């Protein structure tokens, strides 16, 4: 048993391997209980159906459509995300496994693993919601390339902005509320950018340079770098 195996830990191991292990474990746990993915997806689908039902019975002027549809799409995406993205940390705390994770993994690996997991959830969400939304709302997009880039970069930003907040609220007492309260202001700049970007993609004017996509990517990168520095502080006692 005493094989001196821990010595191997001094070798320069990439954080990525450990992060992947955490990511895969979360996916597996999620696959078994399906708490987060279901709550996010069902939330999104039901809101989508409700919105399409309520708005669908109206005649929206063609001129107003790009803007209104972008707003609705991002409201659905952001709120669905807010309804489920804190689960991965909160579950850890509620099940009492947070301590064992603190004892076994490096904080940066934990952050990256959870970030990957949240991005996976967001990806699945977008893969289902965006086409459905386009179909149901009869949303015409003039520049599909820009639209796809905006959706993806917006999704990345959403994940980057919420993961560290989720870690914070998991250790606070009034969890449910806090997540939305703390995340929403952080996400608002991103959301406004993404709405603007999708609107631009839909009406197809002035699409040169994709300025909103760039902003979203910058937001994502900054958020991730900041989080990698700040996360260890909130993770370790």
């Amino acid at each position, binding site marked *: 048993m005493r094989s001196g195996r821990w010595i191997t830990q001094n070798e320069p191991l990439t954080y990525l391997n450990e992060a992947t292990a955490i990511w895969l474990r979360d996916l597996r746990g999620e696959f078994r209980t399906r708490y987060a993915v279901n709550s996010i997806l069902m939330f999104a689908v039901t809101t989508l159906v409700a919105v399409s039902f309520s708005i*669908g*019975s109206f005649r929206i002027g063609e001129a107003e459509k790009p803007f209104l549809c972008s707003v609705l799409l991002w409201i659905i995406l952001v709120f669905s995300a807010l309804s489920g993205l804190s689960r991965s940390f909160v579950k850890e705390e509620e099940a009492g496994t947070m301590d064992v994770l603190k004892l076994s993994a490096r904080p940066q690996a934990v952050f990256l693993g959870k970030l990957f997991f949240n991005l996976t959830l967001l990806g699945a969400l977008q893969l289902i919601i965006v086409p459905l939304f386009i179909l*149901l709302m009869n949303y015409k997009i003039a520049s599909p390339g820009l639209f796809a880039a905006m959706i993806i970069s917006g999704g990345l930003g959403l994940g980057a902005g919420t993961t560290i907040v989720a870690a914070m609220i998991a250790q606070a007492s009034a969890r449910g509320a806090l997540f939305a309260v703390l995340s929403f202001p952080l996400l608002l700049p991103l959301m406004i950018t993404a709405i603007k970007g999708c609107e631009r993609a839909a009406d197809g004017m002035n699409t040169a340079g994709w300025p909103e996509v760039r902003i979203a990517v910058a937001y994502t990168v900054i958020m991730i770098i900041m989080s990698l520095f700040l996360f260890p502080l909130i993770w370790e006692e």
Partner: protein
Amino acid sequence: MIIKVLLSIWMAVIISAAFLYAGAAAGFPGQTSRILFFHVPQAWIATLSFLLSMIASCIYLARRSVKTDHLALSAAELGLLFCILATATGSIFARATWGSFWNWDPRQTSIVILLMIYGAYFALRSAVPDPEKRRVFAAVYSILAFVTVPFLVFVVPRITASLHPENTMNPAKPGMDPKTLKVFLGSLLAYTGLFVWMLRLKIRLLRLEGRQEPEFVISEKLKQEGEKG
């Protein structure tokens, strides 16, 4: 076996009659009305099996016999199948007559709710690991869902005026083309026969599967031991 052959011949006859014998009904664009011979019986079977499933659930809660649960489950499964078919044919039909696949017609709303109930029923079943608990929960849910149906019938027609035709296929209505009526009734019969046949098949399958389950094997073994000792 003989039933299976008879049924398939009957289905074949009805399908050909629907396209060759009956005329295209007035009031529908082109040949589209022929879809009615399939769409209406499908919707009818979907509703019927829902009712059947609920009744079986009630009996299950009273008697707790696995057989009635099998009936409830099979009826729900077939109901879901026919519900999807009715929605699909209805949507195609809607596209041809009203111009779009979906427009929240009251009929469409109610069939979506029915679909959601079926979906929820299976989601619930797959989420409860303990077999007996699963049966009880499913039965309870199907009763609860059924309780809301009268409200639905009462409420949905209030929301919007419907484009959906009423009573075009009502056999009691005078003035219906006798050829159409014949084919329609034949199709109703064919679908009902098909439903009953599939239902029995499904129940048999469930029973055979049940015998394979370790629970069943062990309790049978223990019962036999008990009888001996």
